[in-house]
């Protein structure tokens, strides 16, 4: 929604009397049930609202209750429509993102302190990494126990002694923090591997700042865009050439935070890549594109270190690039963060950081962290065992308590006697695998529940990006809210709800966006390279959508009252032909041919038939999921709506037909969006190639079925409807349909945008415009086939067409589709993937 419209909304909401707002605010304060003995963000120790929150609720309370709900609804709708999702471990489908409607407010002075603590910590961790993987003096001189490092699965021996290309280990660092009982911010954990959440924070900000644009502006909240800009620029600067190519390495669309990877790629202007998209050549990383291998300079990885290279790390991983570590050794690619950085996430290290800070920085740590005893050390082990019921036990190197089949920290007091004894024994024999952590109750913040506010504990993730001018901190962050009121600090790994975070300033803030300053920008008209996998997905997206359209046309023809199926023997035969087509396409089952009433409904929306319109639109949606960074939000929204509509059960033929009609209109608007709004770079061409190919094949098949040698009026009439040529035909011939003119119009007429010839001509234009990967100077196979087809169609005469010629042309089209796949997507689903050599030699 436009910014202007949002402001209008704010004005409407303001019409309420200020006094009414104050009354509501006072009521909220009275009803707010703080948790005993736990600090709160909203109310101070004296029970009065803190200044930043008063400012917020003054303005917020002035909105009428139904206006507030309307705004919240708007925010939720935006999230749903933008398709903001995440996937919990074990889920098979994405979950909608749940955003708490009230932001976390942090006063500027408080925030500055937090920033100073995070900056110092980021710098310290960078230096510790440099030592661990470099000279290793901290260990040699006893400042850091070797075992605290060696025990981490993230201590990567293959990169020991390999200087990080680009000069840094940490490009991005995040800390999970919470406010302790003493009112200070405490670090609960460090994220040095590949911190997630920045993209969600960005999305949360977009949504909330739109829903409450007036309020947002009045609070002087600094924007997050400059942070991302600084991050992007620093990654660019780290490459060893200007205009570097940067990729976001994602595990793929099954990853729990895939949406975020796509968001970041699109927002930062990076390529979204998977391991299979990349190849090692000449000691560098390259991306497989439709124009061949292109060098990739920087990888922002969201794949864990151990999965990055099956040759030197986890051999079973398919997420990485074989040979990547060797490229790092040869300084051939910048990886952010440097593989192995995750070693600092080990809790075993926490207790040593204060001394390391004094030693490496000459400073005391500015921010405390949660008290942690590493049981590898005798005194700490004894302390933990003596106070077993007061501390939480967690793995020293990764999440999960070794020896107990439980995720996350455990409280000994909650274990049964057997487990408790096992835990004690385990700590006594292999103490180094465990830490004890103090159980802290974190402060609470207000969340909105049914017209009231209520306190909930939260954890804030703060992000820091390394820039040439030092660490840049994202003003705001990723805030996760616990569902239970009494969650303890350590058991809050995953809040179910997120909140935006507003740093509230007394001063006006600048309104920077991610648009770069004009003098730095080189004019470009083509949007970078197109990875083969993205081209493959675009091609199939086009094909699925076109196939869905064809199926819907069949459904409409069969179900409409004026259509066949409703009268003469001839129309009955035509109806059977449609049914046969639907069966052949997998849109309906064989058996439902006996129950004509169910056929149209089944072809429309059966989730069990792979060829039903619903299944095809869902296939398009799945394909689109892997293209999130390349599709406009509008296009995504239309696809989602279609899938939702088709899944909505219909009762009679009429509603089937009207659902088909509506969906056909949406498909048309989607085609229009692609035609009018998509950049004419290679991506659009592959989408259109997919569409054209599928349309040519379907039109040929329809023609074969309904314009056979003895076809009657009914059949030809249906064909004209299916290929959308009724009007053209009637305006030209003023006659009932006749075989040769109908065949000419459907197959040969180059002026008819629905004809086979038109599709083939367009395909030829696309193929000619695509990068050529000439082998030995010969014409490439897709072009050879397409040119030959075009010649055949251009020279054919409608009167002399035979069904067997039509069939041969259809086969040629199928061969062309295959040739396009093999030529441009050589590592698509059908192509060769790297295989592991059998082990044990």
């Amino acid at each position, binding site marked *: 929604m436009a910014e202007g419209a949002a402001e209008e909304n704010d004005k409407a909401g303001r019409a309420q009397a200020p006094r009414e707002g104050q009354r509501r605010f006072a009521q909220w304060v009275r009803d707010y049930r703080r948790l005993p003995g736990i600090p709160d963000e909203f109310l101070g120790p004296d029970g009065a609202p803190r200044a930043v929150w008063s400012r917020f609720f003054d303005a917020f309370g002035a909105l009428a209750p139904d206006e507030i709900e309307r705004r919240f609804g708007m925010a939720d709708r935006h999230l749903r429509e933008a398709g903001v999702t995440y996937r919990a471990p074990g889920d098979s489908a994405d979950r909608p993102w749940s955003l708490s409607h009230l932001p976390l407010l942090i006063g500027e002075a408080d925030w500055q302190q937090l920033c100073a603590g995070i900056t110092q910590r980021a710098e310290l961790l960078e230096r510790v990494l440099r030592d661990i993987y470099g000279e290793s003096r901290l*260990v040699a001189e006893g400042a850091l126990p070797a075992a605290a490092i060696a025990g981490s699965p993230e201590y990567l021996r293959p990169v020991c002694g390999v200087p990080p290309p680009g000069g840094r280990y940490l490009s991005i660092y995040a800390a999970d923090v919470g406010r302790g009982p003493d009112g200070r911010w405490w670090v609960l954990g460090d994220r040095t591997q590949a911190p997630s959440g920045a993209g969600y924070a960005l999305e949360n900000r977009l949504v909330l700042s739109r829903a409450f644009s007036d309020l947002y502006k009045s609070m002087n909240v600094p924007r997050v865009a400059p942070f991302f800009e600084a991050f992007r620029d620093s990654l660019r600067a780290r490459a060893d050439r200007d205009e570097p190519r940067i990729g976001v390495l994602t595990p793929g669309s099954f990853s729990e935070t895939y949406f975020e990877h796509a968001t970041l790629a699109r927002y930062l202007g990076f390529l979204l890549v998977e391991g299979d998209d990349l190849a090692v050549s000449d000691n560098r990383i390259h991306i497989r594109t439709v124009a061949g291998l292109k060098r990739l300079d920087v990888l922002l990885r969201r794949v864990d270190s151990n999965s990055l290279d099956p*040759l030197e790390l986890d051999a079973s991983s398919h997420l990485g690039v074989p*040979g990547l570590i060797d490229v790092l050794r040869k300084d051939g690619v910048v990886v952010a963060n440097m593989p192995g950085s995750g070693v600092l996430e080990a809790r075993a290290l926490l207790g040593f950081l204060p001394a390391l800070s004094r030693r490496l920085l000459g400073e005391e740590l500015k921010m405390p962290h949660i008290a942690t005893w590493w049981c590898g050390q005798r005194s700490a082990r004894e302390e933990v065992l003596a106070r077993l019921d007061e501390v939480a036990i967690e793995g020293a190197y990764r999440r999960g308590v*070794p020896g107990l089949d439980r995720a996350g920290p455990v409280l000994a007091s909650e274990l049964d006697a057997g487990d408790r004894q096992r835990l004690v024994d385990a700590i006594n*024999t*292999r103490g*180094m695998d465990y830490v004890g952590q103090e159980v802290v109750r974190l402060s609470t913040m207000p969340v909105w529940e049914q017209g009231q506010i209520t306190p909930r504990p939260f954890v804030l993730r703060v992000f820091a990006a390394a820039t040439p001018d030092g660490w840049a901190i994202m003003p705001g962050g990723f805030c996760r809210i616990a569902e239970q009121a009494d969650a303890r600090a350590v058991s809050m790994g995953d809040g179910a709800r997120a909140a935006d975070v507003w740093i509230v300033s007394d001063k006006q803030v600048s309104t920077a966006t991610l648009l770069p300053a004009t003098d730095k920008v080189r004019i470009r008209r083509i949007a970078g390279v197109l990875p083969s996998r993205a081209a493959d997905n675009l091609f199939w997206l086009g094909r699925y959508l076109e196939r869905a359209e064809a199926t819907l046309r069949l459904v409409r023809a069969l179900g409409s009252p004026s259509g066949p199926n409703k009268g003469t023997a001839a129309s009955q035969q035509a109806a059977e032909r449609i049914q046969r087509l639907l069966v052949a396409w997998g849109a309906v089952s064989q058996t439902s041919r006996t129950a004509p009433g169910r056929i149209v409904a089944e072809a429309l929306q059966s989730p069990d038939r792979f060829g039903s319109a619903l299944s095809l639109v869902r296939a398009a949606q799945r394909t689109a999921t892997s293209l999130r960074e390349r599709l406009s939000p509008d296009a995504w929204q239309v696809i989602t709506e279609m899938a939702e509509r088709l899944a909505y059960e219909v009762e009679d033929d009429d509603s089937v037909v009207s659902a088909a009609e509506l969906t056909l209109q949406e498909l048309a608007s989607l085609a229009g969006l692609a035609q009018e709004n998509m950049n004419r770079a290679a991506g659009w061409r592959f989408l259109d190639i997919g569409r054209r190919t599928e349309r040519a094949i379907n039109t040929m098949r329809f023609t074969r079925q309904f314009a056979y040698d003895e076809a009657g009026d009914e059949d030809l009439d249906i064909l004209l409807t299916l290929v959308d040529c009724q009007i053209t035909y009637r305006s030209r011939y003023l006659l009932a349909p006749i075989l040769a003119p109908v065949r000419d119009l459907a197959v040969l007429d180059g002026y008819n945008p629905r004809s086979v010839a038109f599709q083939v001509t367009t395909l030829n234009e696309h193929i000619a415009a695509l990068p050529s990967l000439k082998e030995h100077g010969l014409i490439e196979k897709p072009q050879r086939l397409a040119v030959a087809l075009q010649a055949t169609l251009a020279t054919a005469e409608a009167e002399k067409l035979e069904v067997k010629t039509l069939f041969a042309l259809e086969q040629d089209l199928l061969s062309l589709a295959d040739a396009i796949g093999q030529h441009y997507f050589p590592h698509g689903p059908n192509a060769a993937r790297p295989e592991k050599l059998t082990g044990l*030699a």
Partner: protein
Amino acid sequence: MIYDIRHVTTYEYENPVSFARCTLRLEPRSGDGQELISHRVEIRPRPAERTVRRDFFGALTESIVIEAAHRNLRIDSRSRVSVSRQPPARDAASPPWESVRDIAFEATSLGPASPVGYVFASPLVPVLRPVSTYAAESFPPGTGILKGAVDLMHRIRTQFRYDPKATVISTPLTEVFDKRHGVCQDFAHVMIAGLRGLGLPAAYVSGYLRTIPPPGQPRLQGADATHAWVSLWCGEKLGWVDFDPTNDLLVGNDHIVLAVGRDFSDVSPVDGIIVGSPKQKLGVAVDVVAVE
């Protein structure tokens, strides 16, 4: 003792392979009673790239890239090594295992020889309570580390069945342990898991056995292929001592060390990826001849 070693690895592919990237660790180590005299590796088809480095554990590691289409890959490694080791007697005196554990843990080095790198779970060797409990039976409080390890080795040799058909490289340790069968690699992994479960530093050793035993001695199990055994750090004085649980003996002059790591994944002699053929047949032939 001087040995000539021939180690030939062949892969046969069902379909032509258009690309291969491999890592080879085929050069026997020098040091710890062993000296490499000569070493040569021949590869067919000939690689487009060959680069050599030392890995973290000190093994000579060769990375090769083959770009020519091929249906057969043959890696022929020949080495000459002299071996002169004096293992401790099975009943030699040794410090109590608890003190070794504590000293190992206090190591102030992350280097490959530091025992601290070998007390934790590694990619193929998890720390599992049943295996730790099994090992603990050999280590009553105060037991000398050598005595405990010899006992554990002996129990594995007598209680596990040697069966080359029972396991493959990907068979998980739990299965090997539950079914009490496997090959040298499995036995080594089980022993390592048990020792580490007690907090003791145990490493994985890959290598060779002489093919024809000295006159009057039986042929050892595993002599026609690459072999694997366990190295246990037994305190400052004894250092690393090698135990062969497959043959229930302390490693002497019949063994030639190829590489040492945390488990098989660190020392795999031939590893790699290929493009083009999901089906492949692996052949390994090892011949170790005593020349003097």
